[in-house]
């Protein structure tokens, strides 16, 4: 039956003539392309990224919200010497409670390791975010100018050559030694020359793009400098910026752990992961429950940040959008 219906259709109804349209013929039909939508499409195509983001949110939420529900005070039991350095079972027996507080035992001042880990990771994450933001902003703005202006380049190279010769650890240690070890002095010590490395790396990238043909053509056509930087150079460097961010963010957490370990870290009043590790490291074979939790949390945060950053950097590279 159906076949009959189809064959019975008049051929003239299927095709009809149209006039040539000069305006339409000038248009090129291409799929709609939105940069950021493509970035997220590529990023979420990988299932591991969703898992990573879930973990990341979990850590962020627990680091920022849990200390509000469970206030952490390292000096809570400081006068009660028998409560020091107890393993989980003994700590629960001692405090006669089976609350989560003593899930990981107690530390050198009778403090709860479980609560401490969250309160400390809050400080460590904040420090990393603040330092990375400051260094990235200064480093990228100055790096862009440094790469673009040849006069500024000569001047900055002299400064860079002098500062880069000072070992970073030495500089930070001396600065912390001088200005103290509170949270903001520590941020200052990490950022006072921290941006220089980022700026130098970015300068080289800008110089490479600056002299590409399309950029040169733009300049010949009289495009203003700011527009060249904004439209020709920066979009190309988005993935470079995200790559720097991916290594910078976790590096500050590691840096804080390292500096606390050698004794120039944050002061005792600011609970940080580095501080906890430093306090526990001398007896880490005797009281392993004090040492491994902060180490595990620090490692988890840095690995997640690193992987997320790397994958985001891959996704921001337009070449992966095909």
């Amino acid at each position, binding site marked *: 039956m159906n076949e009959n219906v189809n064959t019975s259709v008049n051929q003239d109804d299927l095709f009809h003539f149209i006039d040539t349209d000069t305006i339409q013929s000038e248009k090129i039909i291409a799929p709609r392309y939105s940069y950021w939508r493509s970035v997220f499409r590529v990023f979420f195509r990988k299932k591991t990224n969703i898992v990573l983001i879930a973990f990341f949110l979990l850590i962020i939420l627990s680091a920022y919200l849990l200390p509000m529900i469970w206030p952490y005070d390292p000096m809570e039991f400081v006068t009660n010497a028998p409560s020091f350095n107890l393993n989980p079972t003994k700590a629960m027996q001692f405090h006669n409670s089976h609350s989560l507080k003593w899930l990981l035992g107690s530390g050198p001042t009778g403090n709860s390791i479980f609560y401490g880990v969250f309160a400390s990771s809050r400080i460590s994450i904040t420090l990393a975010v603040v330092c990375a933001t400051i260094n990235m902003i200064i480093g990228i703005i100055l790096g862009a100018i440094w790469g673009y202006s040849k006069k500024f380049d000569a001047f900055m190279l002299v400064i860079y050559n002098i500062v880069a010769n*000072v070992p970073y650890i030495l500089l930070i240690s001396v600065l912390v030694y001088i200005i103290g070890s509170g949270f903001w002095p520590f941020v200052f010590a990490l950022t006072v020359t921290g941006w220089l490395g980022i700026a130098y790396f970015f300068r080289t990238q800008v110089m490479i793009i600056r002299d590409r043909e399309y950029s040169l053509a733009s300049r010949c056509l009289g495009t203003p400098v700011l527009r060249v930087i904004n439209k020709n150079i920066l979009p190309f460097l988005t993935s470079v910026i995200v790559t720097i961010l991916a290594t910078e963010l976790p590096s500050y957490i590691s840096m804080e752990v390292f500096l606390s370990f050698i004794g*120039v870290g944050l002061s005792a009043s600011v609970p940080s992961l580095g501080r906890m590790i430093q306090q526990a490291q001398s007896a880490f074979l005797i009281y392993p429950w004090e040492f491994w939790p902060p180490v595990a949390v620090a490692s988890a945060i840095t690995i997640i940040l690193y992987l997320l950053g790397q994958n985001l950097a891959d996704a921001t590279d337009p070449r992966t959008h095909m």
Partner: protein
Amino acid sequence: MKKYLAKRILFSIFSLLVVVMTVMLLVYTLINRNVIFQQDDTWNKKASNERTIYEYNKYQDYGYLVYENYSNYLRKQYQEKLGDDYQNDPQFKEDLKVIQDPATFQENEYVKGFLKEYAAKGYTVKYLKPDTSKSGKVRKGGQAFLIAVHEKNPVTRLWSYAANFFNIDTTNKVKDETLTDRYVRFEKDPYSGLFAIVGSGTLHKYLLYFDGRFPFIHQNFIKINLGTSYTRYRNQEITTVINTPTGDMITKRQQYPNMLGTDEYADTAIDFHSLTYNYGEVSPVEAKQFPDKYTVYSFLRSGFTMIENSFVIGIIATIIAYLLGLPLGITMARHKDGIIDKLGNAYIIFIMAVPSLAYIFMFSALGTSLFGLPYKFANAQVKILAYILPVISLALPSIGGLMKWMRRYMIDQMNSDYVKFARAEGLSEKEIFNIHISRNAFIYLVHGIPGSILGCLTGAIITERVYGVPGVGNLLTEAINQHDNGIIVAMTVFYTTLSIISIILGDLLLAKYDPRISLNADKGGGR
């Protein structure tokens, strides 16, 4: 090329000076000096003027200033005049007391002399008034003091540091008029059996000698002087500290210089090659043992020096890292996206992302519990075993870094024309990867080789701390914790010099390895 090098070296020296100047400014002028008294019980016990005097004494110990007390000055004057019995002289006691009266003390002859001498030297003279209560009684520690203080200014500090940096030993080094016989000559060395260059009038007795310690031939003509430690190694020269073996003393059957030629022997650990001139009095015992005034010595010790400890661990780790990291990187690139590549990437991410402290502790826990390796350096029964864990801890991150970059550069090179050409010529994949691509990829890594070798000298902070290795890596952090400004400046110079030399050597090696690269701005492609 020579011109280019000279320019580079000049600029390096300039930047070294700027760096040292900055660090000196930071540690000597910007840090609040009072921090050194934070945990000082003696300071807490002292009060009033005595506390101020104690502070000045400490500031002098820490190298902030030079200071002289009137009572010391007076003692010296009387000792010169009356010999050692001056203490009981009634006039001396009176002259000592005279400063307790603020109204009349300036009329005293000795006070006048003190004021005049130190004003001429550029010191600031300070008079601390007697601290009395309302009833006129002097408070505890409140007696008057007369002192002269000279703050070192940063420029003279830097200048004197630079001027004393190279210590050249000549026959006029010892300022002593009684020493008339000054010479430098070859002599047979009774302690090594070979010859030695021996000096008189020089600071060191043996200027060039052989012994059983690496590098077997030693010289004392030119010594680098990095400065003096103030607190950590009380008043020792830092160059000596890092070059002194850290092991136990070795007692041997030896002859003192005066026993030579006789059958007499003594059991002693003295290193007779280390003799230096004694500016003080030679004790009667020493006079029997030594023919001359070269009676200051150090002891023979076993084991490595601090710098050798750091270097040995570092260099073995570096060699292992290059031997493993490069081939692994090549293999990963060759089997890109294969199982080896994925495993390698996981390792790289682990090493890059996890704080180094965490995995060093992890490895130390694994090594001690699974293989029974010694954990602390000091209590190792077999010394060689104590090196294994530190070497592994240092090598693992370097392997990760080298793998990462080698893989990256190999992959970047894989689509080059020369690779396609080699394939077209029918070369095997193995040959293309192992010879042609790896050589080109290695260009990017050549620059870092001198740095990683010289970097071994600076030691590794975490590794040395965790395993208790007596090396140089911890000197800086220890110095910072103990406010030892001398070591801080010395380590700055040491680190900075090494990093400057590594960058220059890296550039030279790069130009040597890849002839296309020219360092000279006039030649070659660069703009």
